[in-house]
């Protein structure tokens, strides 16, 4: 047979087959949309929830096999245990993402700058017993600390310059303790209170015989946290 009668149809066939091939469809936009549907903390919470449900379905399916003695020749229990553990992990991850989302949503509403600054007690020279106490202020701070267990308060006490610095340091400590005890009596927890006995006051107040030496309470609240005890 003449070779051209063989090669020509073959070439035509190859050409027609090439014409029939279609290019692979671009799926990048679809992938991007799919990724977008599960983006962010809320999307990830949904994703983990779905994965947890899938794992749980596997575990329950195998539980059914074991209870009905099906698939006896296949050791499915380990697979079920792994699936159940994975379901738990996904549940925790979902919970965490959900809490992060809550923080994201509710965080801006938190009152970061709600610190209270109060001068609560006044002492005369060399005395740790206040001649004037703002019981209302102490009560307000104590109740606030009681209501916010994660908040803290700093009690700062100082003295005038009468007497030796070491004595004044001890005096300021006693003054701070006086205020601390009153705060605890009003609801504050001891571990919420930070005592700063600074001894003789600094700056323009570093003078003798001033009867307005005070103890000041400044509260502080940690950063906003949702679900702080998550696993």
């Amino acid at each position, binding site marked *: 047979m003449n070779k051209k009668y063989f090669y020509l149809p073959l070439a035509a066939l190859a050409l027609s087959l090439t014409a029939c091939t279609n290019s692979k469809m671009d799926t990048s936009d679809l992938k991007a949309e799919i990724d977008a549907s599960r983006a962010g903390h809320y999307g990830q919470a949904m994703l983990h929830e779905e994965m947890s449900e899938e794992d749980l379905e596997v575990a329950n399916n195998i539980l059914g096999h074991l209870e009905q003695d*099906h698939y006896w020749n296949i050791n499915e229990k380990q697979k079920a245990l792994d699936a159940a553990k994975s379901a738990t992990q996904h549940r925790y991850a979902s919970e965490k993402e959900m809490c992060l989302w809550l923080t994201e949503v509710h965080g801006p509403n938190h009152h970061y700058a709600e610190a209270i600054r109060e001068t609560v007690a006044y002492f005369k020279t060399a005395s740790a017993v206040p001649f004037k106490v703002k019981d209302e202020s102490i009560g307000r701070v104590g109740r606030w600390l009681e209501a916010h267990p994660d908040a803290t308060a700093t009690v700062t006490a100082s003295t005038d310059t009468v007497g030796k610095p070491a004595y004044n340091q001890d005096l300021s400590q006693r003054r701070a303790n006086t205020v601390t005890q009153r705060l605890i009596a009003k609801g504050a927890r001891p571990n919420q209170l930070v005592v700063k006995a600074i001894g003789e006051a600094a700056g323009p107040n570093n003078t003798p015989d001033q009867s307005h030496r005070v103890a000041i309470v400044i509260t502080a609240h940690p950063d906003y946290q949702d679900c702080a005890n998550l696993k």
Partner: protein
Amino acid sequence: MNKNKILAACVLSGALLTVPTAQAESYMKGFSNKVSQGLANIAFGFAELPKNVINISDDQNIFVGMTWGVIRGTAQGVTRTLIGGAELLTSPIPTSDYASPAYVWDRFSEDSRYFGLHYPGYWTTYGPLDDGDDD
């Protein structure tokens, strides 16, 4: 027909008629299941052969499948066919299933057992036709 046979027929019919409806329905269901399983196992018992070959080949390799799988499948096929006959013969008597899975196509990755007993040399993984989700 003599009088004794007529009497016996009357007594049996009466007994059946006095059985509560629910029990009668349950009995009929068990009866029809057993007939159905008996016929299916007689007709398709031979399917144990490809079932064993496919599952053992997947679990081990094609050589084991085509040797041990054929031997085992033949034995299983004969057993299932005989079991099918036994199910059909005893269909009026309510019992639990003789074969598990009841039909050869059920739970394809599960090795068949008869009266709770199995043949040695079974496979231990899911086969290619069933991943345990289809029941």
